[in-house]
């Protein structure tokens, strides 16, 4: 399929619904298997850290959720651009349905970070660059949620949320570079695209499995939410009426 044609079809919720069923199943199964393997491997079989002992196992939950919290925000920002520039319906649905997922990931990243900080830094919380900018991201997610609730007209709510999502992406590079720009207790990045990880493979392999697994979980959530929202918005059309009339599977 040509790229331009694909682009056009993404504008059609019905086409997306009909092609995405197998993808959702695939992502869901992959997420379940990878996270199960990665978590058990990380918590029980990876070797302890020479400085942090066993508390470093928190990394296998903390790093994937923190990476994903930022990725979801970037996706919301991109959806905001697609909505404002091309009026893409699917982009509006992404902005509407993925906020709780991003919020949950950010909250989980902050929570696991606090619990890791206690034995490692000696405190649950410090207001430094990384933690504060991540807290700002949590508030941005809350803002997107509240804004949607506060504006009754769906199109107006969508445009307002798109704008907030786009403006908020400024925060993402701040989160990323905060550990380099400011003095901090927070350690540097675990994975970098340009260098090999600064730990042995037995330690970073389970982390990589969890990171891929949580991206699959994101894919599964994204597709599932979009499919449900498509049915809800198009419930008056003939194809959805026919689909709903079939027995539940």
């Amino acid at each position, binding site marked *: 399929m040509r790229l331009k044609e694909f682009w056009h079809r993404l504008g059609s919720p019905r086409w997306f619904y009909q092609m995405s069923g197998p993808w*959702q199943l695939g992502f869901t199964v992959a997420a379940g298997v990878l996270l199960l393997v990665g978590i058990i491997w990380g*918590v029980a079989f990876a070797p302890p850290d020479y400085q942090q*002992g066993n508390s470093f196992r928190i990394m296998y939950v903390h790093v994937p*959720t923190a990476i994903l919290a930022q990725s979801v925000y970037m996706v919301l920002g991109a959806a905001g651009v697609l909505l404002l520039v091309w009026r893409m319906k699917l982009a509006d649905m992404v902005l509407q349905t993925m906020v709780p997922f991003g919020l949950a990931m950010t909250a989980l990243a902050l929570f696991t970070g606090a619990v890791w900080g206690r034995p490692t830094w000696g405190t649950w919380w410090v207001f430094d660059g990384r933690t504060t900018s991540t807290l700002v991201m949590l508030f941005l997610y809350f803002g997107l949620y509240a804004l949607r609730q506060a504006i009754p007209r769906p199109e107006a709510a969508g445009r307002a949320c798109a704008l907030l999502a786009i403006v908020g992406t400024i925060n993402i590079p701040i989160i990323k570079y905060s550990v380099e720009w400011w003095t901090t207790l927070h350690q540097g990045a675990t994975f970098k695209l340009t260098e090999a990880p600064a730990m042995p493979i037995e330690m970073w392999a389970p982390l990589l499995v969890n990171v891929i697994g949580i991206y699959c979980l994101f894919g599964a959530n994204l597709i599932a939410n979009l499919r449900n929202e498509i*049915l809800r918005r198009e419930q008056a059309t003939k194809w959805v009426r026919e689909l709903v*009339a079939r027995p539940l599977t």
Partner: protein
Amino acid sequence: MFDSFQAFLDMGGHGLYVWLVYGSAVPLLVLNLMKLRRARRQLLRELKATQAVLDDATHAT
């Protein structure tokens, strides 16, 4: 590898922190995966009910 199950639970004295993290994250992930299936079935039931009401209204007039 841990020497014993007791050592695994203890996590070198950091058991509280490690298990607090895994004990909160794992149930959340499981709930999330379960929700995906439940949400769809619930939505289909809702749409079915709405359509039944609409169809009745159409037949009545």
